[in-house]
C-alpha cells in the first residue's frame, strides 16, 4: 500500500505503524520509549505526527498506516511540542552527560541534540543517590525517563516480574519489587533492563569508568557458557587488552537477551590465574615445559593406560570456554581414536 510522508509517496506494508513505515524508508521520527522488542506504547509522546483526517496529533508508534494516509512528521508546531516534552524530561532529572556511562549511546541525548535543546528550562529536583546495592547493575533514578522498556523486558521477555512502576504522577518511579534496593530484590541481574534502557538510568556496574562508548571496539561472538549459544558483542579496550562490557545482539535469535553469566562473567580471558603455557608436575612441583614435551608426555600416558585397562577408563570433558571446533575435535578424538563414548561437557544443556 502507499502512504504520503511529508509530501512524498512511499510503499509500505499494511499493519506497520507509521513509525515502522517511516523508519523503513529512512525518515527520522524521534522516539524515546519505542524499542523494536518492547513495541510502541505511546508513553513519551516524542513521535507525534500529523495525519490528515485524524483529530489532533497522533503518536507514530501506535497508529497503523492506512491506504493513502497523508502524514506530516515535521512542522513548527510538532517541533515545538517535541521540544517542550523533551525539555520537561531533561528538567525532571539530572542529565550530566559529561560523566554519564551512556553518553554517546543515549537516545535522550540524541533527541535533545536533534531538537537543539541546550539546557533544561525548569528548576531541577533534588539529586538522589544511585542504587549501588547490587553486584552488576546501577540504577540512577534521576536519569530515568519512565519509558517502561526495562519493565516490559523484565515482565515480558525475561518474565522475572521484579520490575514495575510504583506511585503515580510525577512520583512515578521504576521499582524493584516493592521499592527495594536492587541488591535485596528478586532481581537475577541478567541485565536485560540495562540492555533496553535508552538512557544512563540503568548501567553496568563493572564497566563504570573503564572506557567511553566510542573508544571501545565492538566484537561479535558467541557466548562461551552454555549450549544455547547466545550471540553477544564484546566491547573491547584494545590498548588495555580488556573486555569492558558485554551486550546481547538484538539482531540474533536471543534478541539481545543474555543470562547473568553471559553478560557479566567475562573476567576470565584476562584473569591472571589463567594458564598461559603447559606445565607438568615433576616430583610434586609444577614446572613450565614446552608444548612438544607436554603433548608427548600426555600421549604416552594415555596410550599406556588405555592399552593396559581398556578404552572405557578414559573420559573426556569438554569446556564451554573453548570453541565449537575444539569441542568437536575432543569428542571425535575420544570416540574414534580412543574408542569410548565417555564424553561430557560443562555446558551439557
Amino acid at each position, binding site marked *: 500500500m502507499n502512504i504520503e510522508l511529508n509530501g512524498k509517496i512511499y510503499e509500505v506494508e499494511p499493519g506497520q505503524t507509521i513509525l515502522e513505515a517511516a523508519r523503513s524508508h529512512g525518515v527520522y521520527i524521534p522516539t524515546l520509549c519505542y524499542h523494536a522488542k518492547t513495541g510502541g506504547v505511546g*508513553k513519551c509522546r516524542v513521535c507525534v505526527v500529523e495525519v490528515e483526517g485524524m483529530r*489532533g496529533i497522533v503518536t507514530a508508534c501506535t497508529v497503523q498506516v492506512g491506504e493513502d494516509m497523508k502524514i506530516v512528521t515535521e512542522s513548527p508546531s510538532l517541533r*515545538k511540542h517535541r521540544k517542550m516534552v523533551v525539555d520537561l524530561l531533561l528538567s525532571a532529572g539530572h542529565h550530566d552527560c559529561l560523566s554519564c556511562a551512556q553518553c554517546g549511546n543515549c537516545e535522550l541525548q540524541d533527541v535533545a541534540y536533534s531538537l537543539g535543546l541546550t539546557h533544561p528550562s525548569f528548576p531541577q529536583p533534588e539529586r538522589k543517590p544511585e542504587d549501588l546495592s547490587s553486584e552488576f547493575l546501577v540504577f540512577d533514578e534521576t536519569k530515568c*525517563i*519512565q519509558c517502561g522498556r526495562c519493565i516490559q523486558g523484565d515482565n515480558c521477555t525475561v518474565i522475572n516480574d521484579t520490575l514495575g512502576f510504583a506511585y503515580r*504522577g*510525577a512520583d512515578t518511579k521504576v521499582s524493584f519489587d516493592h521499592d527495594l534496593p536492587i541488591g535485596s530484590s528478586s532481581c537475577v541481574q541478567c541485565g536485560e533492563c540495562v540492555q533496553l534502557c535508552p538512557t544512563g538510568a540503568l548501567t553496568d556496574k563493572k564497566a563504570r569508568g573503564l572506557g567511553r562508548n566510542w573508544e571501545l571496539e565492538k566484537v561479535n561472538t558467541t557466548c562461551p557458557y552454555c549450549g544455547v549459544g547466545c550471540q553477544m558483542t564484546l566491547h573491547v579496550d584494545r590498548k588495555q587488552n580488556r573486555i569492558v562490557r558485554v551486550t546481547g545482539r538484538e539482531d540474533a535469535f536471543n534478541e539481545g537477551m543474555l543470562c547473568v553469566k553471559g553478560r557479566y562473567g567475562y573476567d576470565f580471558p584476562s584473569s591472571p590465574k589463567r594458564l598461559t603455557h603447559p606445565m607438568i608436575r615433576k616430583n610434586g612441583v609444577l614446572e613450565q615445559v614446552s608444548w612438544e614435551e607436554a603433548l608427548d608426555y600426555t600421549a604416552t600416558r594415555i596410550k599406556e593406560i588405555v592399552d593396559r585397562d581398556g578404552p572405557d577408563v578414559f573420559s573426556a570433558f569438554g569446556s564451554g570456554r573453548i570453541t565449537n571446533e575444539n569441542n568437536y575435535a575432543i569428542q571425535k578424538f575420544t570416540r574414534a581414536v580412543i574408542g569410548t563414548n565417555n564424553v561430557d561437557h560443562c555446558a551439557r544443556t
Partner: protein
Amino acid sequence: MNIERIASISTLENIRDKARASSPENGKSEEQEAVLLCAGGGCIASGAYAFKEALQSALNSQGLADKVTIIETGCLGPCAQGPVCVIGRDKTYYQGLQPTDAEELVSSHLKGNQIVERLTWKGEGEKPVPVLADIEFFKRQTKIVLRNCGRIVPTSLQDYIAHDGYAGLAKALTSMTPEQVIDEVRISGLRGRGGAGFPTHIKWTFTRNSEDPQKYILCNADEGDPGAYMDRSVLEGDPHSIVEGMALGAYAIGSSKGYVYVRAEYPLAIERLQIAIDAARQAGLLGKRILDTDFCFDVEIRMGSGAFVCGEETALINSIEGKRGEPRPRPPFPAVKGLWQKPSCLNNVETFANIPAIIHRGGAWYAGMGTEKSKGTKVFALAGAINVSGLVEVPIGAKLREIIYDIGGGIKGGGVFKAAQMGGPSGGCIPAAHLDVGLDYETLQSLGAIMGSGGMIVMDEHSCMVDVARFFLEFTQDESCGKCVPCREGTKRMQAILTKICAGEASMEDLDLLEDLASTVKSTSLCGLGQTAPNPVLSTLMHFRDEYVEHITDRKCRAHVCPALVQFNINDNCTGCTLCARRCPVQAISGEKKEKHVIDQSLCIKCGACLLACKFEAVDKQ
C-alpha cells in the same frame, strides 16, 4: 426475603399492580402512613440515622409505631439542607431535621395533622412552602435519571417494579430486536453522560458490529470529578435502574456479562447495588433465560480504589483486569478490543439510568426534551456560593440563570455571581456575561467549559480565578497516572507556575511559559486527563486574563484570596480596644490602649483573626 422467579411479562405486571397499591410513596394504604426519610450519602452524613432513631422512639412512645413506617429512600436533591424527609400521603417536605425535632413532628403532623412550619422549605419572604410539589427547587426540575430517587425504597425490587421497573427490559426482550433497541436509543438522541457526550447508539452499534462470541458491557461508576455525586445518588437511590439499563445495553450489543466499576469510597452504593443484583438474580431478571427468552445476562461489581484516571475507559479496563490503572493507546478502541481483549462497551451510570425510561416510554418522548443536538435531561451537582446546593436535573439547554437563581435560590448572602465552574478538573469557567446561554454540550465547549459529569461550582466575587485554576491543576497533577510525559511532568510545572503567580512572584514570561505548557499538555497527552487538564487554566485565561496580569504586575488579588497578596491594615475606626492584638496568634499587632493599633506586616501570617475579632470595622483586608 424470598423473591419469586418472574418468568413472564404477565407475572411482572401482576407484581407491579400489587406493589403499586401499597407503595410507601402513596402512604402504603388507607390506614398506613409512611415517612420517606432520605438515606442518601449527604443526609446520612448530616445525621439522618440519628434522626431516624429519635423518630422511631417518638412513634413508639406516642403509639404510632404500627401505623407509621419509616422508609429509607435515596437522595432527594437538596443535600445541604439535610437530613430531609417527605411524609408519604400529603407529600409534606421537611428539612434540617434534628433528633430533637422528632417528638414534635410526630405529635403535630402525624397525630394532629398540623404542619411544623419551622421545618419546612422557606420560599420568598421566608414564607413556608410545605408541599413538595410547590417548592421552586423541585418544581422546576424534570426528573428522568433521578425519577425514583427519594420516591422508592432503593432496596426493594417490588417498589422498583411498582414504578415501571423492568417494564423496558420486558418490552425489549419480548417485542424488540437488539437493532430496534439501538434504534430507539438513536431516536432518543441520548449522548453519554460520562463527560464527552458521545452518542450512545453509535457506541452500541460499534460494539454490536464487532464479531466475537464474548462481549462485555461495562458501567462506569468511578465518579472521580470532585464535587460530582449524581452517579452515587442513582446507585444509592435507584440501583435497579442501572441493572435494567445494563441488561438492555447487553441485549442491544449482544453481551452476556457486565461489570460495574465502582469506587470503594462508595460503600453504600456498593451495598445497595449488590442487594439489587442479588434480588434481580433471584427473580430471574438476571441470569439464564431472562423472562423465559433466550437472553442470558449477569452483572458483577468490581471495586476501584478511587484514582481519578480509572474513570478513563481504558484505564478502567486495565483496573478491572487487575493491572495498574493506566490508559491504553487507542486505537484499538474498546468496542474492538476492550476488557480481556474482547469487544466492550462502557457507559456512565447516568447514561444507563436513562435507558429503561427511553425504552419504556419511547425515544421520541425523550427527544422531546433538550436542544437540537443534545436531548433529554442532565443532572448537575450544584455547589459553592449558592443558597441551595445539591443535585438538580433539568432539560439540557436550560439556562445557567435558571439553575442558579430559580432552582438554586441565588447567590449566598446576596452576593454577585462571578462565574460557574463546570466540568470539574477537565472543565472551565463560565463568566456572568453568559448567564443566559443554554447549557448544552456544544455551547459549553465554545465557552471553554464542558458538560463533563455535571459538576457546577458557583462562585462570587470572593473567588480568585487564578486560585481556582491552581486548585484544579493541583488536583490533576496529583491524579496524573504518570504514564505519559506531558501530563506527568507538564501538569506539575503548570501547577508550580500558578502557585508562583498566586504568590505574586511570577513574571510575564512565566505566563507565556504557562500558555506554552498548556498547549503541549493539551495536544500531546495520551488520555483525556492530560488532554483536558489545562482547560481550567485556558478558560480562566480566556475570560479573566486581567486577573492573572493583576497578580503579576500589580501583585494584587482582587478577591483577596491569595494570602501573599493580601494585607491586613487597621484604619481610623480603631478605638484601641486591644481585642485584635490579643487575638493575633503571632503578636503582630501593637498599640496603646485607646489608641490606634498597627499591624507589623513582617510578622503577619494573614490568618485574618483580627478582621474577625474587630467590632468596629477597623480592619481592612486589601
